[in-house]
Protein backbone atom coordinates (compact mmCIF):
# COMPACT_ATOMS: atom_id res chain seq x y z
CA UNK A 1 0.00 0.00 0.00
CA UNK A 2 1.95 2.92 1.29
CA UNK A 3 5.28 2.70 -0.40
CA UNK A 4 6.81 5.19 1.92
CA UNK A 5 9.21 7.12 -0.19
CA UNK A 6 11.35 8.08 2.74
CA UNK A 7 12.33 4.58 3.55
CA UNK A 8 12.24 3.05 0.15
CA UNK A 9 13.75 6.02 -1.52
CA UNK A 10 17.18 6.59 -2.89
CA UNK A 11 19.84 4.12 -1.92
CA UNK A 12 22.23 5.19 0.69
CA UNK A 13 25.20 5.29 -1.59
CA UNK A 14 27.58 2.92 -3.20
CA UNK A 15 30.05 2.61 -0.33
CA UNK A 16 28.12 -0.21 1.15
CA UNK A 17 27.57 -2.12 -2.00
CA UNK A 18 31.04 -2.40 -3.40
CA UNK A 19 31.19 -6.02 -2.42
CA UNK A 20 27.78 -6.86 -3.68
CA UNK A 21 28.25 -5.14 -7.01
CA UNK A 22 25.32 -3.80 -8.85
CA UNK A 23 22.25 -5.95 -9.08
CA UNK A 24 22.02 -9.45 -7.78
CA UNK A 25 25.14 -11.40 -7.06
CA UNK A 26 25.61 -14.71 -8.75
CA UNK A 27 24.36 -16.74 -5.85
CA UNK A 28 21.09 -14.86 -5.60
CA UNK A 29 19.45 -17.13 -8.14
CA UNK A 30 20.72 -20.12 -6.22
CA UNK A 31 19.07 -18.87 -3.09
CA UNK A 32 15.72 -18.87 -4.84
CA UNK A 33 16.47 -22.27 -6.25
CA UNK A 34 17.23 -23.56 -2.80
CA UNK A 35 13.95 -22.23 -1.49
CA UNK A 36 11.94 -23.41 -4.46
CA UNK A 37 13.45 -26.85 -4.31
CA UNK A 38 11.80 -27.28 -0.92
CA UNK A 39 8.56 -25.71 -2.08
CA UNK A 40 8.43 -28.20 -4.93
CA UNK A 41 9.05 -31.23 -2.76
CA UNK A 42 6.08 -33.53 -2.43
CA UNK A 43 4.40 -33.01 0.91
CA UNK A 44 5.35 -35.70 3.43
CA UNK A 45 2.52 -37.83 4.75
CA UNK A 46 2.96 -36.41 8.21
CA UNK A 47 1.64 -33.12 6.91
CA UNK A 48 -1.26 -34.66 5.09
CA UNK A 49 -2.17 -36.47 8.28
CA UNK A 50 -1.90 -33.36 10.35
CA UNK A 51 -4.02 -31.35 7.96
CA UNK A 52 -6.75 -33.94 7.85
CA UNK A 53 -6.68 -34.16 11.61
CA UNK A 54 -7.32 -30.46 11.82
CA UNK A 55 -10.42 -30.99 9.81
CA UNK A 56 -11.76 -33.60 12.13
CA UNK A 57 -11.16 -31.45 15.14
CA UNK A 58 -13.08 -28.73 13.43
CA UNK A 59 -16.08 -30.97 13.02
CA UNK A 60 -16.29 -31.84 16.66
Amino acid at each position, binding site marked *: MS*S*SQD*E*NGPRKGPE*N*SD*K*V*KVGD*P*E*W*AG*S*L*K*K*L*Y*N*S*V*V*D*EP*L*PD*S*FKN*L*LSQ*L*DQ*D*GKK
Partner: protein
Amino acid sequence: MSKDQKKRELPERSTQDKSDFKRELTEVVPHLRAFARGLCGRPDMADDLVQEALLKAWAAQERFEPGTSMRAWTFVILRNAYLTDMRRNRFRGEYDETVAERILTAPAGQEEPLHLSDLHRALLTLPPERREALLLVGAGGFSYEEAANICGCAVGTIKSRVGRARAALSSMMEDGDIPDRELTDPSAHRAILEELDEVAAGRGEAAAGK
Protein backbone atom coordinates in the same frame (compact mmCIF):
# COMPACT_ATOMS: atom_id res chain seq x y z
CA MET B 1 -0.81 -14.27 22.56
CA SER B 2 -2.88 -14.38 25.67
CA LYS B 3 -4.18 -10.88 25.78
CA ASP B 4 -7.55 -10.45 24.22
CA GLN B 5 -8.20 -6.81 23.98
CA LYS B 6 -11.60 -6.66 22.49
CA LYS B 7 -10.80 -3.65 20.47
CA ARG B 8 -11.89 -5.24 17.31
CA GLU B 9 -14.81 -7.57 17.30
CA LEU B 10 -13.80 -10.76 15.67
CA PRO B 11 -16.56 -11.83 13.37
CA GLU B 12 -17.93 -15.31 13.63
CA ARG B 13 -16.38 -17.46 11.01
CA SER B 14 -18.73 -19.12 8.63
CA THR B 15 -18.23 -22.64 7.45
CA GLN B 16 -17.07 -21.15 4.19
CA ASP B 17 -14.47 -19.03 5.98
CA LYS B 18 -13.25 -22.08 7.77
CA SER B 19 -12.86 -24.13 4.68
CA ASP B 20 -11.17 -21.23 2.92
CA PHE B 21 -8.80 -20.98 5.82
CA LYS B 22 -8.02 -24.64 5.67
CA ARG B 23 -7.41 -24.51 1.96
CA GLU B 24 -5.15 -21.50 2.17
CA LEU B 25 -3.28 -22.98 5.08
CA THR B 26 -2.71 -26.13 3.10
CA GLU B 27 -1.44 -24.13 0.17
CA VAL B 28 1.23 -22.36 2.16
CA VAL B 29 2.67 -25.47 3.78
CA PRO B 30 5.36 -25.92 1.12
CA HIS B 31 6.43 -22.33 1.65
CA LEU B 32 6.50 -22.77 5.39
CA ARG B 33 8.71 -25.80 4.92
CA ALA B 34 11.08 -23.87 2.70
CA PHE B 35 11.28 -20.95 5.09
CA ALA B 36 11.76 -23.22 8.07
CA ARG B 37 14.47 -25.21 6.35
CA GLY B 38 16.30 -22.02 5.57
CA LEU B 39 15.96 -20.85 9.14
CA CYS B 40 17.04 -23.90 11.00
CA GLY B 41 18.83 -25.98 8.41
CA ARG B 42 17.82 -29.43 9.47
CA PRO B 43 14.95 -30.79 7.41
CA ASP B 44 13.50 -32.86 10.23
CA MET B 45 13.54 -30.02 12.71
CA ALA B 46 12.24 -27.65 10.11
CA ASP B 47 9.28 -29.91 9.53
CA ASP B 48 8.63 -30.19 13.25
CA LEU B 49 8.62 -26.45 13.38
CA VAL B 50 6.16 -26.21 10.53
CA GLN B 51 3.83 -28.68 12.21
CA GLU B 52 3.98 -26.66 15.37
CA ALA B 53 3.24 -23.51 13.39
CA LEU B 54 0.32 -25.16 11.61
CA LEU B 55 -1.26 -26.17 14.88
CA LYS B 56 -0.82 -22.67 16.26
CA ALA B 57 -2.21 -21.12 13.12
CA TRP B 58 -5.19 -23.42 13.27
CA ALA B 59 -5.83 -22.55 16.88
CA ALA B 60 -5.55 -18.86 16.10
CA GLN B 61 -7.52 -18.89 12.90
CA GLU B 62 -10.03 -16.38 14.15
CA ARG B 63 -7.28 -13.79 14.17
CA PHE B 64 -6.63 -14.28 10.51
CA GLU B 65 -8.29 -11.67 8.39
CA PRO B 66 -9.71 -13.26 5.28
CA GLY B 67 -8.28 -11.68 2.19
CA THR B 68 -4.90 -10.92 3.71
CA SER B 69 -1.77 -12.90 2.99
CA MET B 70 -1.87 -16.33 4.55
CA ARG B 71 1.78 -16.79 3.75
CA ALA B 72 2.81 -13.66 5.64
CA TRP B 73 0.54 -14.48 8.55
CA THR B 74 1.78 -18.01 8.96
CA PHE B 75 5.40 -16.94 8.52
CA VAL B 76 5.03 -14.77 11.61
CA ILE B 77 3.77 -17.75 13.55
CA LEU B 78 6.50 -19.98 12.24
CA ARG B 79 9.12 -17.40 13.03
CA ASN B 80 7.91 -17.03 16.59
CA ALA B 81 7.95 -20.77 17.06
CA TYR B 82 11.49 -20.82 15.75
CA LEU B 83 12.63 -18.02 18.04
CA THR B 84 11.09 -19.71 21.03
CA ASP B 85 12.76 -22.97 20.20
CA MET B 86 16.08 -21.29 19.57
CA ARG B 87 15.96 -19.60 22.91
CA ARG B 88 15.24 -22.90 24.53
CA ASN B 89 18.39 -24.07 22.83
CA ARG B 90 16.57 -26.75 21.04
CA PHE B 91 18.77 -26.42 18.01
CA ARG B 92 21.90 -25.70 19.87
CA GLY B 93 25.05 -27.10 18.43
CA GLU B 94 23.26 -29.74 16.49
CA TYR B 95 22.40 -28.45 13.16
CA ASP B 96 25.58 -26.99 11.88
CA GLU B 97 27.75 -30.04 11.56
CA THR B 98 24.95 -32.42 10.83
CA VAL B 99 23.63 -30.38 8.00
CA ALA B 100 27.02 -29.74 6.50
CA GLU B 101 27.88 -33.39 6.70
CA ARG B 102 24.62 -34.59 5.30
CA ILE B 103 24.74 -32.21 2.41
CA LEU B 104 28.38 -32.66 1.63
CA THR B 105 28.33 -36.42 1.72
CA ALA B 106 25.21 -36.73 -0.38
CA PRO B 107 25.89 -38.14 -3.82
CA ALA B 108 26.00 -35.47 -6.45
CA GLY B 109 22.67 -34.63 -7.93
CA GLN B 110 20.76 -36.37 -5.24
CA GLU B 111 20.60 -33.55 -2.77
CA GLU B 112 21.81 -30.23 -3.97
CA PRO B 113 24.46 -29.33 -6.46
CA LEU B 114 27.66 -28.41 -4.73
CA HIS B 115 27.12 -24.77 -5.34
CA LEU B 116 23.76 -24.90 -3.61
CA SER B 117 25.10 -26.82 -0.68
CA ASP B 118 27.84 -24.23 -0.24
CA LEU B 119 25.26 -21.55 -0.31
CA HIS B 120 23.09 -23.35 2.18
CA ARG B 121 25.99 -23.80 4.51
CA ALA B 122 26.98 -20.17 4.15
CA LEU B 123 23.43 -19.15 4.85
CA LEU B 124 23.43 -21.08 8.09
CA THR B 125 26.45 -19.20 9.37
CA LEU B 126 24.60 -15.89 9.22
CA PRO B 127 23.08 -14.45 12.38
CA PRO B 128 19.45 -15.53 12.48
CA GLU B 129 17.91 -12.13 11.99
CA ARG B 130 19.95 -11.53 8.87
CA ARG B 131 19.30 -14.99 7.61
CA GLU B 132 15.57 -14.62 7.99
CA ALA B 133 15.60 -11.20 6.35
CA LEU B 134 17.46 -12.56 3.37
CA LEU B 135 15.22 -15.60 3.19
CA LEU B 136 12.10 -13.52 3.19
CA VAL B 137 13.24 -11.00 0.62
CA GLY B 138 15.77 -12.90 -1.46
CA ALA B 139 14.12 -16.29 -1.52
CA GLY B 140 10.51 -15.86 -0.48
CA GLY B 141 9.99 -12.86 -2.71
CA PHE B 142 8.50 -10.65 -0.02
CA SER B 143 8.91 -6.92 -0.34
CA TYR B 144 10.97 -5.10 2.26
CA GLU B 145 7.76 -3.80 3.70
CA GLU B 146 6.15 -7.20 3.99
CA ALA B 147 9.31 -8.62 5.51
CA ALA B 148 9.36 -5.79 8.02
CA ASN B 149 5.80 -6.61 9.00
CA ILE B 150 6.61 -10.25 9.40
CA CYS B 151 9.62 -9.51 11.58
CA GLY B 152 7.93 -6.71 13.47
CA CYS B 153 10.64 -4.19 12.72
CA ALA B 154 11.24 -1.13 10.60
CA VAL B 155 11.69 -1.32 6.86
CA GLY B 156 15.11 0.26 7.21
CA THR B 157 16.15 -2.46 9.63
CA ILE B 158 15.18 -5.14 7.16
CA LYS B 159 17.05 -3.41 4.39
CA SER B 160 20.16 -3.19 6.44
CA ARG B 161 19.90 -6.84 7.49
CA VAL B 162 19.41 -7.97 3.94
CA GLY B 163 22.30 -5.80 2.83
CA ARG B 164 24.61 -7.26 5.41
CA ALA B 165 23.49 -10.78 4.72
CA ARG B 166 24.12 -10.24 1.02
CA ALA B 167 27.55 -8.79 1.60
CA ALA B 168 28.50 -11.64 3.90
CA LEU B 169 27.25 -14.30 1.51
CA SER B 170 28.90 -12.66 -1.46
CA SER B 171 32.23 -12.58 0.19
CA MET B 172 31.90 -16.14 1.43
CA MET B 173 30.84 -17.39 -1.97
CA GLU B 174 33.49 -15.45 -3.81
CA ASP B 175 36.31 -16.50 -1.56
CA GLY B 176 34.95 -19.99 -1.19
CA ASP B 177 35.64 -19.51 2.47
CA ILE B 178 32.67 -20.68 4.43
CA PRO B 179 33.20 -20.98 8.15
CA ASP B 180 31.44 -24.02 9.48
CA ARG B 181 32.14 -23.80 13.12
CA GLU B 182 30.63 -20.50 13.89
CA LEU B 183 27.43 -21.82 15.34
CA THR B 184 29.08 -24.29 17.64
CA ASP B 185 31.43 -21.68 18.98
CA PRO B 186 29.98 -20.86 22.40
CA SER B 187 30.62 -17.16 22.29
CA ALA B 188 29.16 -16.80 18.84
CA HIS B 189 26.21 -18.80 19.95
CA ARG B 190 25.68 -16.66 23.00
CA ALA B 191 25.76 -13.57 20.85
CA ILE B 192 23.17 -15.08 18.58
CA LEU B 193 20.92 -15.92 21.49
CA GLU B 194 21.23 -12.41 22.83
CA GLU B 195 20.28 -11.05 19.48
CA LEU B 196 17.38 -13.42 19.39
CA ASP B 197 16.14 -12.07 22.67
CA GLU B 198 16.03 -8.66 21.18
CA VAL B 199 14.42 -9.85 18.03
CA ALA B 200 11.91 -11.75 20.08
CA ALA B 201 11.17 -8.83 22.36
CA GLY B 202 9.25 -7.02 19.69
CA ARG B 203 7.44 -9.98 18.37
CA GLY B 204 4.32 -10.26 20.46
CA GLU B 205 2.23 -7.74 18.70
CA ALA B 206 3.11 -8.84 15.23
CA ALA B 207 2.07 -12.33 16.14
CA ALA B 208 -1.05 -11.84 18.18
CA GLY B 209 -1.71 -9.59 15.44
CA LYS B 210 -3.49 -6.59 14.49
